């Protein structure tokens, strides 16, 4: 397709679909059309996931072919991807054709490989954060660093469930920190993100921003 034709065509499709989906919230007659576009979007999202997996496979297969320093990790990834895919197809065949319970082999892989690995990473992160907190004042010894350090300690103490009944004000301090300054800052971030999302949506609807090319 000619690029000169593609650009305005893609822009027209994006704007048209966006306007119809947005109008579907306010015009009852457009609900069915909005739902049609949403379903098409779901199919495209699923296809995009498959395309992403294929791209991941291609990138690491290329790294393996180049035989660089990290090609060993790419080999493990490609092997794991192919093995999981084959097991998934096997489970799918077993479930769909013979009515066996849900993907037992895949569930075994998830329970005994993926879940422990990710949970262990979270545990390592807990140790790393603890170590970073101890080293924090080693590098930064100024007023704000000291304030930050003691706020961390106060929140941790307030999270305790065992000793706080005897010291009730500790839990109240933690509640105040979490519900007022922390929540206020987080809400501010969310409001900024929401405004940015609205602005981005409007830019796409009026064609100023064209992330799909052109």
């Amino acid at each position: 397709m000619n690029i000169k034709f593609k650009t305005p065509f893609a822009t027209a499709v994006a704007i048209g679909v966006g306007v119809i989906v947005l109008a579907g919230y306010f015009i009852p007659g457009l609900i069915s059309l909005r739902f049609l576009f949403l379903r098409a979007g779901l199919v495209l999202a699923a296809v995009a996931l498959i395309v992403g997996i294929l791209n991941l496979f291609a990138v690491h297969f290329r790294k393996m072919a180049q035989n660089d320093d990290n090609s060993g990790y790419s080999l493990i990834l490609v092997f794991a991807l192919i093995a999981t895919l084959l097991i998934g197809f096997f489970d799918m065949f077993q479930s769909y054709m013979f009515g066996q319970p849900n993907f037992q082999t895949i569930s075994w892989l998830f329970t005994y490989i993926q879940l422990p690995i990710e949970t262990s990473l979270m545990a390592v992160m807990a140790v790393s954060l603890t170590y970073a907190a101890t080293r924090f004042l080693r590098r930064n010894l100024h007023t704000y660093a000291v304030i930050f350090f003691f706020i961390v300690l106060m929140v941790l103490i307030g999270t305790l469930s065992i000793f706080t009944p005897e010291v009730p004000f500790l839990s109240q301090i933690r509640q105040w920190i979490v519900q007022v300054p922390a929540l206020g800052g987080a809400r501010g971030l969310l409001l900024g993100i929401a405004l940015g999302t609205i602005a981005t949506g409007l830019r796409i609807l009026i064609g100023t921003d064209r992330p799909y090319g052109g």
Partner: protein
Amino acid sequence: MAEIQCPNCGKINPEGKDVCDSCGFPLPSQSPSINQETPSTSPDATDSPPDLPSDAQDLTPGEAQEDIPDGEDEGDEGWLDILHAAEEGEEPGDLQTPSEEDEEKKEDTDWLKRIRALDVEEEKGQETPEGETFPTWMSEVEGEEKVEKTPSEEKQELPDWLQSEEEETGEAEPILSEKDEGETAPPEPAQEEEGHFPSWLEEEEEPSPAGEGPIQPFELDEDDEVIDDLFDEELPSWLSSVDMEKEEAETGDDISPGELPGWVEAMRPVVESSDTSGLAEDEEYIENYGPLAGIPSVLPAEADIDQTSVEEGSKLSFELQVSKTQKEYASLLENVISREGKAKPKGEVKPVATQRVLRWLIAIVLIISVGASVITGGGTGNPSPAGHQKDDPGPAALYEMIDEMEARDTALIAFDYQPALAGELNATASGVVNHLLRQESYLAFISTQATGPSLAEHFITNTQSEFEYQHGRDYINLGYIPGQAAGVLSFSIAPREIVPIAFNGANAWDSPPLKEIQTLSDFDLFLIITDDPTTARMWIEQVNPYISRYKVAMIVSAQAEPLVRPYFQNSPQQISGLAAGLPGGWAYEELTGSPNLSSVFLFPLNVGIIVTILTVFIGGLANGILNLIKQRKNKEKRGVS
């Protein structure tokens, strides 16, 4: 109307013009005597060149040179003569009346003369002096205003040259009259053929004697060499025939460049400066050479350069004079620049031994403390949660929602959290789901993450194994919805169309849990389990229009609690029940009276938090003190130095 012919280009300019419209050459001022002068047709004219008027022939050469522009046609002939004289190596100032020998040399220009003669004849016939009436031969065509005159009177009023012509031919008047009439009416060809030129013009017409035949219109003779030369790209024959070597030998170096016309010479100031070296301090510079000679205050062409300084400058050495310090700086800069192009070898950074030890020490302490609390059984239900956790309305509201459900009611559960947080959220949700199963509720699982269906299967298999729930009979796993918010919205609008089959490929909506479900609002409870506040917000925003808010509840991790809790605490509520973190799960289990994973994990969690607090406090305090000591030492070093 009198017209002036440019002596330079021959262009006819209207009267009153000072310069030529075509070439800008200054036009001579037209005096009445010049307008009245007519070409001489006297017999003496044969001794003089026919191209020059009689009064011009009487002038001395110098005067003739000055008066050349004063005439009309004469002017043209004058510059032609000048050119001709130049060809012969004569100075224009030496212009003399051409002799008969000169006429022979000018044969090559006869074609030009003939053309000019015709033009002059036409111009003369149309010319009328200012303030005078038309000539008699013109006034005859004036019609009624014309005054009848006798032939003798008419003869007296005619110009001399015309009278002589009339005497010779006796047909001039009719011819001219017919010619003038031809301006108003188309002339008959026969009458034109009978026309004759004046005698002075017919003298030029050698082949056709005057009065012997009709005047033939001027035509280009294709055989004429001169005419061919005009339209030839090469030089004309008369010009190419000139022997250049001979001409150069004759002229030599006598040709003075940039000769000015006489009228320019007359305008030029005669004052000359005696200063030839350029500007004097108190005097104005007066040009000595060229067209501007004698004019003061002219910018000199020569630059004001002192020759001595120029000669001295040319002898100066170009060797750069730098000091020793400057040479050191230059070499230093050169070294710095040369290092930029070289790769610096990266040395291996050895981790500080104390840091590695500290890292391992922290890990060992945490593992031992938490592991010991888990192994020793920490005491299910032993720890008493804090007051605010006991009084949390979220678990209580969630408990009431589930407690009001009847058997075979269907609860939709969204498993939207990462496997890394499964330890916390599985424990928190176990008590809630356990309550649902004890209520004999149907369950349906959905997720917007690819790992969600596996997490759901893991959860129901590992935490609720005592109930022996089976897929397709007691619960249904609807799998994964792509598209994030768009997928959630689509599922909220039409769940049957978006997820037609179950995780195992069976028809999900024919199974007992979903048989009576048509829309999202048909579910009796919608429980969202997530660790991400953004995911929680997405579900709340998309499903709220399609399901009653009294049916929506959440189980979130402790890190998402601050951002999710406002959805429960605000009025009106957007979720009706909330259990956050292990304390929330423990509180729910306390309500149900059946301790579960939250109660088991709460004590190890508290032990881990206490160890972390102590480690951070002690380690941070020690590092802060070390940093303070280091800073003081640095200050002392600076003070000493």
